[in-house]
């Protein structure tokens, strides 16, 4: 690590080395912008590197760009992302099939195509499903990638283009003067800047509050399980039965879903995201999805902390005051959209608007008038059974 004093400010300081901040910084570096990422831990360490790796978000205005960019990402970054195109949805019964057909319409309405798979065709593509599977859908769009490899790819690619990353740098304050952010203060020093991208995940709210802007996000923990490797299916992007996930290129089945837990984060802390008995319910659903893989061993589980806005939609917004700050939270769905969200953030930071997607409804302004305790009304608060039987652990 260079001496703290030796790290100079940057034209754009990105607060948060998660997948959204890293992608934005990489896009900025591609444009020749002098960019510095401040990350309080290790790049991509939290939810950005621990997720299902899905790249299929038809409800997003960034969907087309997501679909356009992913096939190019290995080449653009210069590092492997393990991206593979296409998704298969497995329906165990007629009700699930109907549900998945319903969820396919949004992509179909945008010109993407879906093939229906009968049970036999599905069994050929996905040998781990059972005899009584109802059928499935093949989405000729979407895909999946390896989150861990991709976040590191962004980090390395942005360094290759002269961008800088300072890890283990906890941002304390974004200093504002005359309606503009002028510096970012962290433990290692104060970094002057012309613009700030605030992409600090669950910490975005606290840091924005420091300059008087309310960003309504609350954090929650979600978890996944992963099995030992299995022979590769033709398409790894297979899920269903209330699970999201994929078979990795190594052959592991990595799946998540089910109940999340709303949490509180103490200041700038990075809470250890633990697993819960939900891992057994994930195993149950995966066994139901892939009965022919019932013998496969689960070797790991993990959990990550994500933040959600009141409507579960991103905030991608260049603020009016301070005028040189972009807020970027993807509301719990950041990884797959990251090639596109980073480009959008780059444009917001450099040009003030995005020329390839309609971000009208992703502004912070939509939450004007939101009650301060909005999250309580939804039950988005930590919950304890409260019978007092639990000793302090």
């Amino acid at each position, binding site marked *: 690590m260079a001496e703290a004093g030796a790290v100079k400010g940057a034209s754009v300081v990105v607060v948060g080395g998660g997948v959204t901040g890293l992608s934005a910084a990489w896009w900025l570096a591609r444009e020749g912008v002098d960019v510095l990422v401040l990350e309080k831990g290790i790049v991509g360490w939290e939810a950005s590197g621990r997720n299902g790796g899905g790249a299929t978000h038809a409800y997003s205005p960034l969907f087309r760009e997501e679909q356009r960019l992913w096939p190019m990402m290995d080449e653009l970054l210069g590092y492997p992302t393990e991206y593979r195109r296409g998704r298969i949805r497995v329906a165990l019964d007629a009700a699930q099939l109907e549900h998945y057909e319903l969820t396919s319409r949004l992509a179909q309405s945008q010109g993407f195509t879906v093939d229906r798979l009968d049970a036999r065709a599905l069994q050929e593509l996905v040998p781990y499903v059972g005899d009584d599977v109802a059928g499935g859908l093949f989405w000729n769009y979407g895909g999946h990638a390896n989150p861990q490899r991709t976040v590191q790819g962004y980090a390395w690619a942005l360094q290759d283009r002269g961008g800088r990353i300072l890890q283990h740098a906890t941002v304390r304050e974004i200093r504002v003067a005359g309606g503009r952010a002028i510096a970012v203060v962290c433990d290692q020093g104060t970094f002057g800047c012309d613009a700030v991208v605030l992409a600090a995940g669950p910490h975005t709210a606290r840091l924005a509050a420091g300059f008087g802007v309310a960003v309504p996000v609350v954090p929650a923990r979600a978890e996944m399980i992963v099995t030992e490797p299995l022979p590769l299916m033709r398409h790894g992007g297979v899920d269903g039965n209330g699970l999201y996930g994929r078979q990795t290129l190594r052959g592991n089945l990595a799946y998540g879903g089910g*109940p999340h837990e*709303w949490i509180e984060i103490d200041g700038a802390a990075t809470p250890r995201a633990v697993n819960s008995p939900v891992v057994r319910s994930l195993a149950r659903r995966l*066994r139901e999805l892939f009965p022919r893989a019932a013998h496969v061993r689960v070797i790991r*589980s993990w959990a990550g902390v994500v933040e959600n806005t009141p409507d579960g*939609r991103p905030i991608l917004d260049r603020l009016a005051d301070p005028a040189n700050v972009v807020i970027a939270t993807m509301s719990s769905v950041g990884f797959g959209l990251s090639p596109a969200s980073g480009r959008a953030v780059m444009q917001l930071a450099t040009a003030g608007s995005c020329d390839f997607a309609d971000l009208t409804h992703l502004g912070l302004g*939509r939450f004007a008038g939101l009650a301060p305790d909005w999250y309580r009304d939804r*039950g988005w*608060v930590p919950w304890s059974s409260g019978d007092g039987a639990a000793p*302090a652990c």
Partner: protein
Amino acid sequence: MTEPLDSTAIAGKVFPVRAHVPVVVVGAGPAGLAAALEAARLGLAVLLVDEHPVGAGLIGMDVPLQFGERMDAAVRNKPRMLERVVAARPGIEEAFAMGVDVQLGVYAWGAFVDGPTSRAQPRPLLALADDERSWLVSWDRLIVAAGARDLAVAAPGWDRPGVMGARAFAAALDLYGAFNGRRLVVLGSGVVGLETALRAKAAGLDVAALVETADAPQGPAALVDAVRRTGIAIATRRCVAAIAGTTEVERVVLRGLDDGTTHEIACDTVVTAIDVVPNVELFDLLGCRVAYRAPHGGFVPDVDGDGRTSAPAVFAVGDCAGLSDAGLGDPATAIAAGRRAARAAARDLGRTDVPADGAPPAAEPVADRDPALRRWIAAQAAEGGDALVVCQCENVTLRDLLGVRPPAYLDYDAAKFAGRNLHSLAAEGPLNQDQIKRLTRAGMGPCQGRRCREQVQALIALRSNAPTGSVPLPSFRAPLRPLPLSVLSADDEPAELRANWTAWFGIPAQWLPHWEKAPEDAEFWGGRVPIPDATK
């Protein structure tokens, strides 16, 4: 409690437990048995679980010990193995007689307690499984006596059947009565290596050599003398150039570290007995504070005189709390620790009449166990070179590891990695084994990193000229034993969990087009997949 609940969150979903037990003891070695017996004597209801005899499938995966396929077919006969385990540990019969609920062949694969990101369960839980199913128990006090596991060291050919760890060897011989080797080469002349050689000799096995990279035997003089009296040759200043054979181990080629000469020794088993490692996986899951202490054998939990960890309801006793200088030969320390913890647990649970154990806590270990680890790892890395496979499961070579390369099954631009390695990574902040795991896959395989995590830690430390303990403990994750989906599967999950299951957060507007204004009262449809009836 009038606030609404998010029906798709964990809030309000209480997972069924098979039983609530005031005191659960994990591990039926000397420390765990002593704890269970003492707690039972004090009138407490006690559940004592031990994973031995483990299923044959896990034995084949080198879980939880590096068995190296040196167990005979009897290990498939679970009832017979149960008999042997009970016979090998007389305290188990006594525990049965005392009314302890003894469950053998049961894996403790997870523990769930209150913490900053988990508050929804009414009581602390321990997750258990046998070879058929998994279940949860709740507890008031948990005494972990998980012992130690094997320290593996990569050498050319170390993936051959017949290469095993010292604790696996001891278990094969004394617990399972199923060791099927005849002629051994033992690596390491510290207390573990010397005890292993002596035990083998006592069992009538042939010990062809004891190998040591240092210039003299490392363990206590009395043990060295005892080994020498048996006639076992101690080969110093040597490392392993190759472990060779057609498929299984047939011979070991040793290399003189001073003159580079080699010589072969015929054998069918190589026991890596350089050291053992305290089993701290449950403490890591539980969030107990752990610290690296070289005399204790690596990362161990912080404990007070009673063995109480930083999680006040959790105790650590025996080898998992830290190794002793005396090795396995002296169980008295472990037994005393088990009793002290049980008495402290009893006091916690209302037995205020139980006085503290008068015996003084055992002397802290003083012998620094780190130099042997570093010396062996450095010698074997130098001998094995770039092609040495460090992580067997994921086939990660030393070159891949030091160069933070992607796995071999990926195409990548090698030129991009020319300047990237552990050094460049270290320049960006303290090295973290979990990050290197993500990049290289070292430690990500089915053995759950058991065979490589200490090696990777030491290699990172050696290459960055840092103390071994400066590399943080890589995280442990549930399930702590590889469990089939069919075993882990929650067939007992609460109905409200099944009914409210969503693939992702149950936020209606998240699934509707974001280029339109979010409806005020969107009907939720996007992520809630109709889950088939549980009875189907």
